[in-house]
């Protein structure tokens, strides 16, 4: 059996690369560990000394504001030193390879890499390379790789669901939108399944669904009204125009008509259903402003919880 590259020989989390294949106990332990960190933000001194003296490198090979900022805040609230690498202006544009960059940062005594990359598998490659060069004391957190995974987003979504719904045992959850290009959706589906959510639905036009998506353990709906009926949680996805090659959609107006979350479509869900979105939102494309700013939206709490969840992940990795 090939060992899970995220776990050390004691079965503890060493890197966070994907939720796929993580034991349920580890997922639950991250959610449990995150709860005490929410309180740190309410103190006069918003800092705890867990990562004091550690150097955390934000390696973002792809644009991001929210994820990079929340990782930076999380690391700083743990008292780490945070170094943001602006890859667009760095040596990569002069031709340095990814692994040469990693070698150089390892030589600068890095303790943790937060990696975002357009290529699926880049964080795995880095983790494997660190092992090969005998530098596996350096931890790797995947902050989004290609279409593959965005595990901290999946975890913060689970934290949010647990916060509002208390328990995963009787929920019906709909993931709506551009599943095809979405690493967020993949991480959400793996997390919902490992936590035992009985019904996970994906709602999208056929052109925005990966082939054989049913094999991930989801029910597929092409009609949004059918897909939202009676759900407890609506997880919207961003329409990823920048990742689309060719014409998968007639127009964003038509997309909004059929797959935009409007108040009348939301009425089909349970009255206490919550609405989530990983951001950034395209208002009037996948979500109506009346819903995004409405009483059922928990989109901003997701951002706040995301800091606590990232603090928990970094603390666990550094302590294992």
């Amino acid at each position: 059996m090939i060992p899970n590259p995220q776990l050390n020989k004691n079965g503890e989390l060493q890197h966070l690369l994907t939720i796929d294949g993580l034991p349920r106990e580890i997922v639950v332990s991250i959610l449990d560990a995150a709860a005490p960190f929410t309180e740190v933000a309410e103190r006069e001194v918003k800092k705890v000394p867990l990562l004091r003296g550690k150097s955390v490198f934000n390696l973002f090979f792809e644009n991001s504001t929210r994820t990079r900022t929340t990782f930076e805040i999380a690391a700083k609230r743990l008292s780490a030193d945070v170094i943001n690498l602006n890859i667009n202006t760095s040596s990569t544009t002069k031709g340095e390879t990814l692994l040469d960059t990693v070698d150089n940062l390892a030589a600068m005594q890095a303790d943790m890499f937060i990696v975002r990359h357009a290529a699926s598998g880049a964080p795995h490659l880095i983790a494997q390379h660190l092992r090969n060069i005998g530098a596996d004391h350096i931890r790797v957190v995947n902050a989004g790789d290609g279409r593959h995974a965005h595990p901290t987003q999946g975890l913060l979504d689970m934290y949010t669901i647990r916060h509002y719904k208390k328990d995963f045992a009787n929920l019906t959850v709909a993931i709506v939108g551009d599943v095809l290009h979405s690493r967020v959706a993949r991480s959400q589906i793996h997390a919902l399944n490992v936590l035992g959510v009985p019904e996970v639905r994906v709602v999208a036009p056929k052109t925005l669904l990966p082939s054989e998506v049913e094999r991930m353990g989801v029910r597929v709906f092409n009609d949004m009204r059918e897909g939202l009926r009676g759900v407890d949680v609506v997880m919207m996805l961003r329409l990823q125009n920048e990742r689309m090659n060719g014409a998968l959609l007639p127009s964003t107006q038509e997309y909004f008509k059929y797959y935009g979350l409007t108040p009348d479509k939301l009425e089909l869900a349970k009255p206490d259903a919550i609405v989530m979105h990983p951001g950034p939102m395209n208002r009037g494309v996948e979500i109506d402003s009346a819903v995004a700013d409405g009483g059922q939206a928990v989109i901003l709490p997701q951002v706040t919880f995301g800091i606590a969840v990232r603090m928990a992940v970094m603390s666990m990795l550094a302590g294992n």
Partner: protein
Amino acid sequence: MPTLPQATELCRRLADLMRPHVTPATALVGIQTGGVWIAEWLHRELGLKQPLGSMNVSFYRDDYHQRGLQGGRKPSAIPFDVADAHVVIVDDVLYTGRTIRAALNELFDYGRPARIDLAVLVDRGGRELPIAATYCPHTLQLPAAQSLNLERTEDGSLEFTVVEK
């Protein structure tokens, strides 16, 4: 092995030691989990008016890199203004002093207290830091291989047990 002290009796004696020195404005902060149980009892017994605080010091521990994150604890809750307050930190057992060092550091991240005292049920020796209790009704010596734990039974009463590490 020395006879184990009666926790309920020690709580009463601890309250007697503290009574002449506290005012209604004195704030108690229990260290999770045993210290919180004792602090809850002292808070009622001494008729204190400040809301009770509780602290999870695991983010401040110096042995975090050996022990990792300890799950299952609640967040710290300090529901009063620490600045210029008289605070009594409450814990079950005083041993190396490292927990108290962590608690002091954490408390200062909430503000600058006027005074901090320490109340414990038992001092078991073995200090590794220059820390002493202000109020302590019982001392005993235990070998390092044993740990003294406070437990709460189903009827809510407190009991000490000794566990071989």
